[in-house]
């Protein structure tokens, strides 16, 4: 894919590293000359110094060939304008913006930015989840956090151990996609009996996470 990254400063370094290693073609647009120098020295990418909210600059950078644009500056209005220019004026198929003010996430979506990421929201969510969900061994948000995929290992004294999935009565808004037992992976049905040591892969809505955990452990940790 041909990816444009606008702004982001030196944080772009790691992003660029990972994207280039995956075979994407990168164009980095940065205002700070020193940051540009560093990026250009370290990466096989086209680095352009300038204001990425200026249409002529995007045009010169070859935006018409771009498949995905990421707007990562520290100013929300700039990120909005970058994504809107890309999608409305230059027909870039996918745009993604970072917002600093979480309230702007919905605003950006209403104004046509396809993917909006609020770092503040992600970090606070993660902290909240960690606080009471210490025993979830793996947690990945899907589709910007609309759905969570989590892995929970069953302990001997858990309420659901020895019960069938049907009898354990998990919340309706959750689903056990898979039970990992030793080397085996089981796609469970209602009659599957849960054992201590099983690792459950559970898909659920984020707000039901604590309820799922309560069903398993019998308490909030």
């Amino acid at each position, binding site marked *: 894919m041909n990816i444009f990254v606008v702004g982001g400063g030196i944080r772009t370094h790691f992003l660029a590293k990972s994207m280039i290693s995956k075979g994407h073609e990168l164009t980095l647009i940065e205002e700070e000359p020193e940051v540009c120098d560093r990026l250009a020295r370290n990466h096989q990418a086209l680095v352009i110094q300038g204001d990425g909210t200026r249409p002529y600059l995007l045009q010169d950078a070859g935006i018409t060939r771009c498949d995905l644009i990421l707007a990562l500056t520290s100013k929300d*209005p700039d990120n909005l304008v970058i994504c809107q220019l890309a999608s409305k004026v230059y027909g870039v198929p996918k745009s993604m913006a970072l917002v600093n003010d979480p309230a702007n996430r919905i605003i950006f979506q209403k104004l046509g930015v396809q993917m909006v990421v609020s770092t503040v929201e992600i970090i606070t969510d993660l902290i909240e989840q960690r606080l009471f969900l210490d025993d979830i061994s793996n947690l990945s948000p899907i589709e910007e956090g609309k759905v969570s995929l989590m892995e929970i290992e069953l302990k001997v004294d858990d309420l659901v151990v020895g019960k069938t999935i049907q009898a354990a009565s998990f919340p309706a808004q959750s689903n056990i996609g898979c039970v990992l037992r030793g080397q085996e992976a089981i796609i469970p049905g209602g009659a599957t009996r849960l054992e201590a040591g099983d690792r459950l892969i559970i898909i659920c809505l984020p707000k039901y996470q604590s309820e799922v955990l309560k069903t398993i452990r019998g308490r909030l940790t």
Partner: protein
Amino acid sequence: MKDKYIIIVGCGRLGAHVAKMFTRSRNSLVMIDKDATAFSRLSEEYSGFTIEADAVEQDTLLRAKIDQADVLVATTDDDNTNIMIAQVAREIHHVPEVMLRIYDPSRAKIYEGTGITTICTTLLAAEAFSQALGSQEGVTAP
């Protein structure tokens, strides 16, 4: 003309001047600027409210009662800020009349067709220059 409820964002030279002209025509005005010292630019006869806050934050516009506004004018010195505020006012809060000032006219394509009025100071000045030149030479400006 019926009295209107007008929100002006950005109390720079232009914003303050617009406020002064609108004050004369008996409208209710609210001026928003993130820097309180900017309000010193307002003329003495200005009788509207002032809000010291960043209008890019949604709470600020709600505090200014944007849902009741008849007109919003975005005159900060940053094109992108004006473009964002104008779009939020027009597309999300459905303010009937939204105007913004920009320097770089090429950005106006972003919000084409939304009914936002663009005042591009660069183009206005260029036109004024060319007209002045035209009238000097006795030819009409293109």
